[in-house]
């Protein structure tokens, strides 16, 4: 016979103000099986937990129900308390009488009635709970970082500095990400390359870091502490171990028409190339779609000139398998396509550029060697108009509903840098709101207006069109309440940013979730911002939400702390709420294995006694508890009703249904 204890929490006045907690505890005393029922101000507090522990011992409780806040909040706390008092932690159920009751109802009588039912439901369940023991699994002391932007770089350095091996898998031929493309950085205006490249070099030189550039994730198996990952090393047609980065091949390559992605396609590059001078690894890559040798069979000039014999036209994609204890996703972002925004004339006018293109136009290593010239005729633009929120905070469906967060700051930066370098240039900025919270950020923006005389115009732009070689920007000035048209030489669009599209594939491979905007979802918006909902997978940088460098680096270091915290452990406890077949009922039909997304189910031949000395060998399902994630898909699929889920058994759920319906 079960001996159940019930503990109703007031949560200060959070619950007690709308639920008559004393009455609930009183009414519940009469429930069959309940031998103890009480209420207390804060069950989660030290004293509250002490009360629980004492009651377990004094009344010899076999199961307990806590009527309190959401189990997502304190289930773990109460399980620990139970365990400390010698009760199996899985003999604990939480009735959610705060989020699902006191906070949503106003009428005390109604809320109290509901609380009683919720507690009864939990009692019905706990009576059918069975003690469970979490298994243990070893932790592989190596981390994987997907994406080698500043987020991935920072996370890798921090993890490696703590003494653990880290692999950075980067899809491009070099690490660095978007930050490598940026010219100067707000709010300090230091040169991006000057602060980024030392970190890139640190990665390359760190004995614990292995950079797998030009590589992508193909397959992920396993679980926290024990991931097994298949990595595709794309053919770069250059032997990474031999290439010295001398760039002789780049001088000789006759195929010079490939668009230079690093310079946002503003100029061209050779088929064999190193994206930028400080690339890490400093190894060339051949763009097969541009290479004459690969397209026509004639050429091979680079091979002739390469002193170290690094060129290998026969190279194929290769695959490697590696094991990791933890994974950091840091896949970053891209500016959105502007196909939905024809009104700004981006596709029709060379002199309408995005902010990221402007970064390249202002960079000393960019297509114009750092002299700001307009793309159409190479002249100095005298009037430059910026348009903010292009595709951000857009609920029309053409753009993104969220704020891209970084554009207000980088536009102020661009405006200031231009006014500083070319004081005769007129700079206008159309904005909806200027949002610059952050240390020294608002001061930075104000400097653009007050010190550099940048003309900020509150209003939206209706259209940009070309009239006699001038870009006419037509918009409204909401402060003066008038329509204005600004004759401009260059128009810069602060295009919204969105997660790098391959993140969808990554999320699927890692079985972690993404939101409606393709940003990876964190486990808790406030309290677990760097953990993904999948144990052992962490999130850093813009792949989780728009951020600037400062926030990206903070988040990456936070990620690293979490990864280190995981990797220092030798063993991990696994979730014991896993599927288990009743072998007597299972007929080995294979249906369950078909629905299991994790491949946790296999089949084994087992000998069963039939009685009378006879035995029979039958094929039955067998669940690997370390791989099963406990979703329960198999339990419903099983036609013989053999498969059940520990902790959420069919009987338990049925009893909950019964308790709710019974009036």
């Amino acid at each position: 016979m079960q001996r159940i204890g019930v503990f109703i929490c007031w949560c200060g006045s959070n619950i007690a103000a709308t639920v008559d907690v004393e009455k609930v505890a009183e009414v519940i005393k009469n429930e069959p099986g309940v031998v103890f029922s009480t209420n207390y101000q804060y069950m989660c507090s030290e004293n509250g937990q002490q009360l629980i522990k004492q009651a377990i011992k004094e009344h010899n409780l076999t199961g307990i129900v806590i009527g309190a806040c959401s189990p997502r909040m304190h289930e773990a706390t109460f399980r620990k308390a139970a365990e400390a008092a010698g009760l199996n932690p899985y003999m604990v159920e939480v009735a959610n009488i705060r989020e699902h009751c006191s906070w949503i109802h106003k009428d005390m009588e109604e809320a109290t009635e509901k609380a009683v039912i919720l507690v009864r439901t939990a009692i019905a369940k706990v009576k059918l709970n069975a003690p469970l023991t979490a298994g243990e699994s070893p932790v592989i002391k190596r981390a994987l970082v997907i994406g080698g932007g500043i987020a991935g770089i920072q996370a890798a350095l921090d993890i490696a500095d703590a003494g653990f091996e880290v692999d950075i898998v980067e899809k491009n031929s070099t690490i660095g990400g978007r930050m490598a493309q940026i010219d100067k950085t707000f709010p300090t205006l230091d040169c991006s390359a000057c602060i980024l490249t030392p970190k890139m070099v640190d990665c390359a030189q760190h004995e614990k870091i292995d950079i797998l550039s030009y590589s992508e994730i193909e397959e992920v198996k396993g679980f926290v502490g024990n991931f097994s990952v298949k990595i595709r090393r794309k053919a770069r047609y250059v032997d990474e171990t031999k290439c010295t980065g001398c760039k002789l091949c780049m001088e000789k390559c006759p195929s010079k028409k490939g668009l230079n992605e690093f310079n946002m396609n503003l100029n061209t590059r050779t088929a064999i190339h190193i994206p930028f001078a400080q690339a890490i690894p400093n190894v060339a890559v051949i763009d097969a779609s541009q290479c004459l040798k690969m397209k026509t069979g004639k050429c091979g000039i680079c091979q002739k000139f390469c002193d170290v014999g690094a060129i290998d036209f026969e190279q194929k994609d290769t695959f490697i398998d590696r094991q990791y204890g933890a994974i950091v996703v840091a896949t970053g972002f891209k500016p959105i396509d502007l196909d939905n925004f024809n009104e700004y004339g981006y596709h029709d006018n060379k002199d309408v550029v995005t902010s990221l293109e402007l970064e390249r136009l202002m960079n000393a290593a960019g297509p114009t060697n750092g002299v700001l010239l307009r793309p159409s005729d190479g002249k100095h633009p005298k009037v430059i108009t910026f348009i903010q929120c292009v595709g951000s905070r857009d609920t029309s469906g053409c753009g993104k509903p969220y704020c891209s967060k970084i554009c207000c700051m980088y536009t102020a930066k661009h405006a200031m840098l231009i006014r500083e370098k070319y004081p005769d240039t007129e700079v206008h900025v159309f904005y909806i709101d200027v949002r610059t919270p952050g240390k020294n950020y608002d001061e930075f923006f104000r400097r653009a207006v007050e010190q550099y005389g940048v003309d900020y115009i509150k209003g939206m732009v209706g259209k940009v069109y070309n009239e006699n070689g001038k870009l006419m920007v037509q918009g409204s000035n909401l402060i003066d309440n008038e329509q204005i048209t600004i004759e401009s030489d260059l128009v810069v669009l602060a295009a919204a940013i969105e997660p790098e599209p391959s993140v969808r594939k990554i999320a699927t491979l890692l079985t972690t979730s993404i939101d409606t905007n393709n940003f990876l979802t964190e486990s808790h918006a406030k309290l677990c911002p760097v953990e993904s909902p999948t144990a052992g997978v962490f999130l850093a940088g813009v792949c989780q939400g728009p951020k600037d460098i400062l926030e990206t680096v903070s988040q990456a270091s936070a990620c690293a702390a979490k990864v280190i915290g995981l990797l220092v452990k030798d063993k991990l406890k696994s979730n014991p709420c896993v599927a288990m077949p009743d072998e007597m009922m299972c007929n080995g039909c294979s249906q369950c294995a078909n629905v299991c997304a994790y491949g946790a189910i296999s089949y084994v031949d087992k000998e069963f006694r039939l009685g009378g000395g006879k035995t029979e060998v039958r094929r039955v399902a067998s669940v690997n508890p370390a791989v099963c994630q406990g979703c329960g898909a198999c339990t419903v699929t099983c036609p013989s009703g053999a498969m059940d889920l520990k902790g959420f058994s069919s009987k338990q759920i049925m009893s909950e249904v019964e308790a709710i319906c019974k009036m």
Partner: protein
Amino acid sequence: MQDVTTEKKEFTPTIVAFCCNWCSYAGADLAGSSRLTYPANVKIIRVPCSCRVNPMFVLKAFQQGADGVILCGCHPGDCHYVTGNYYTRRRMALLYSFLNYMGIEKERTRVEWVSAAEGARFAAVMNDFVKQVTDLGENKRLTDLRVKEGE
């Protein structure tokens, strides 16, 4: 439940809501912390994934006197367990036709996708569903008479 229930006024349906731990259960928590109200006759059962819900549980609820059953999972493509909610969708589609066959109005069951971030949507869905079931009136078809004996 004589001690707290007042005598029957107008019809308030009994509603069972199965909520996936990762999204809609958290969505319900968010509705709570945002203090968004929905009727007290909705009672939530936490399941690890919407795919844990056996259509048998739904039938059981109706048999025990529930007037409406709602199942909430992660949005398609966002399942914490990759594909669980697709199974749910298929299974529930079959269940609908079975309920139809038994003469139970299809409107008494629903599958909704509610994410952990959609507290407002959770409350709105519940309000809407309760209204829908209230309009349908009491579920008499599958009630196990033994259950309502006490009344």
